[in-house]
């Protein structure tokens, strides 16, 4: 019988799921996803974490409890330390498996894979892949194939993202399903900055992308920008930002501001997010100084009401449309 691996539909799912899926499928595992985020998942997550944790972590915990009910054999909780040289991820990713193990007992065993590319993709990473692969098979060639499959899947997926598809569609496209129309709403281009696990989760972002579309806007996220665009934006600051995703937000924000790529920018951050508290402030300062681009910041938490968000977004879109007319 296939080994069932549960993958929580939260946090880095939006960035790396196709790679994980390809990896475990190639090893002969069966990947099971938790259901989409809903009220119950959030409630259970909130009950099972420390109260100071940020919203995405609470959501992640809710997804793990959902997987527990699905009777999976393992739950995949990678420890993503670093995705590129000399940059880290937020501290919560570095301690995620420990965080999960300490907070919840009687959950299925956890597969924690250390993904640490701080010093490049070297022997350490390959050994780690082998270690995880051995859970499924002793055949080293098979593990090698799985590693390659994961890399290929990630490459295809990233290409679709850069092409302007949001993760939901890019994932389907990467699996070779028929092409889907890009989600567009109108002629106004709106830059949407935020971690993918916040803005792409339809429940916690209250479907912000669809709302922007409905108000006549087309969304541009940092995923859709080229690497050189992000590099340009990030290089405008004297010190290199040491969080990969924070740097993406910072760079994308600056690039959108300097290049008039969009008509307005919305920045979404989660309540209590450490990195965002700094990034948001730095981006906002630059927009205020230059004062050429409408800018809206939204902070979300488990208590956020949808009406408030709609009102603010609507007012913001009206403002942009009004500017266009004048």
């Amino acid at each position, binding site marked *: 019988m296939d080994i069932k691996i549960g993958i929580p539909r939260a946090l880095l799912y939006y960035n790396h799921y196709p790679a994980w899926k390809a990896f475990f499928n190639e090893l002969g595992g069966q990947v099971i996803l938790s259901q989409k985020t809903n009220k119950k998942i959030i409630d259970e997550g909130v009950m099972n*974490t*420390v109260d*100071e*944790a*940020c919203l995405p972590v609470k959501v992640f915990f809710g997804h793990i409890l959902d997987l527990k009910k699905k009777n999976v054999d393992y739950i995949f909780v990678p*420890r993503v*330390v670093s995705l590129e040289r*000399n*940059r*880290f*991820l*937020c*501290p*919560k990713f*570095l*301690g995620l498996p*420990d*965080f999960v*193990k*300490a*907070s919840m007992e009687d959950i299925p065993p956890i597969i924690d894979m*250390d993904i640490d590319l701080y010093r490049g993709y070297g022997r350490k990473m390959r050994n780690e892949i082998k270690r995880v692969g051995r859970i499924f098979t002793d055949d080293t060639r098979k593990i090698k194939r799985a590693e390659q499959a994961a890399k290929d899947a990630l490459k295809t997926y990233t290409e679709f993202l850069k092409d302007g598809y949001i993760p939901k569609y890019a994932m389907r496209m990467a699996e070779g399903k028929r092409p889907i129309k890009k989600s567009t709403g109108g002629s106004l281009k709106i830059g949407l900055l935020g971690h993918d696990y916040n803005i792409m989760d339809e429940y916690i972002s209250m479907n912000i992308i669809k709302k922007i579309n409905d108000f006549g806007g087309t969304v541009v996220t940092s995923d859709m920008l080229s690497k050189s665009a992000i590099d340009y934006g990030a290089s405008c*600051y*004297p*010190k290199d*930002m*040491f*969080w990969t995703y924070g740097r993406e937000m910072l760079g994308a924000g600056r690039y959108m501001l300097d290049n008039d790529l969009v008509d307005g920018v919305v920045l979404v951050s989660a*309540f*209590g*997010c*450490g*990195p*965002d*508290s*700094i990034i*948001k*402030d*730095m981006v906002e*300062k630059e927009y205020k100084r230059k004062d050429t681009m409408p800018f809206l910041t939204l902070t979300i938490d488990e208590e956020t009401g949808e009406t408030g968000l709609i009102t603010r977004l609507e007012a913001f879109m009206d403002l942009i449309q009004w500017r266009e007319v004048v």
Partner: protein
Amino acid sequence: MKLTYPHMGNLDIILKAFFEGMGKEVVVPPPITEKTLSIGVRNCPEFACLPLKITLGNFIEALDKGADTIIMLGGFGPCRFGYYGQVQREIVRDMGYNPKIVIVEPPHGDLKGFIKNVVSLFPGMTLKDVIKAGKVAWQKMVYLDKMEKALLVLRAHESRKGIVTQKYNEYRNYIDRTSDVREIKRLSLEGIREMKSLTKLVDTTLRIAVVGEIYLLVEPFASQDIFRELNEQGVEVKKTEYITDVVFSCIMPWRLSKIKRAANPYLNQVIGGHAIYTIGNTRICADDGYDGVIQIFPFTCTPEVVSKAILNKMSKDLDIPVMSLSFDENTGQAGYRTRIEAFVDLLMRRRGMDLVNV
């Protein structure tokens, strides 16, 4: 050039000794008060942590006193502190000040480069001068921390409320004023003896270890001086980290391995901030037979939030009571005192001791 730097426990004396030894004029920021904090709160990002807000307040108050150069530490992540210097540079600029801001990046395993970097701040000084100034600062650091360590134990048994603290501050000032290496040592040891003479003998006492984020540990204002609060309830306190420990682990990375080994079953990765120390020291203190552990950290500090979750589990596994307290600018004093009192009561009951403070 008038240098200034943030307050952090004994750091004001240590850095003053160093910079003055290097022939610079130093403007020590006024002591931290509610006003300092409110300057920080008004001008910093809302969700940034308490240390950023307080240190910004320090800078502004020092600039108003005439400082024109700010020294701040940097870092390479994953803790956001590494970017604070950059953020503060922007904030200070937006507030209409125009000081020179020097951000000293930590050695990062490259001690030679670090020293070179520091020396370049002081043109015209020879390596000999640097070593001399460094020696005085080093001595002050080591012996001030030693004295504070004694304070946190002795103050629990003071014969009259406040006298040990008074003696401590007296000797702290003496040490601040001298720049003779041997004199520093003598004063510190004498201070400890003097403090001891002001205590009464007790046979049993509670011992609590305080772990957590380093700024909160070192700077008493940030935690509303939880150490004094505990001491005055008759509890001996062990602060798990001092500036000395930070400096040691910076220049001697192998010292970290003991902590890492202790933390390993619960956390086997340095996740930024002082999380690994929080976990490792908690385990060490539990093994040492401490009655309880208190974790203190600034609100929204991600590494410590992860530690908090892990500490909950450790508390069960190691059978030691742990209480976590997070601090921000809205922290009320009464609420904390109540929680600390309740925690101390709980520990006393566990030990079968009589309640003292009811």
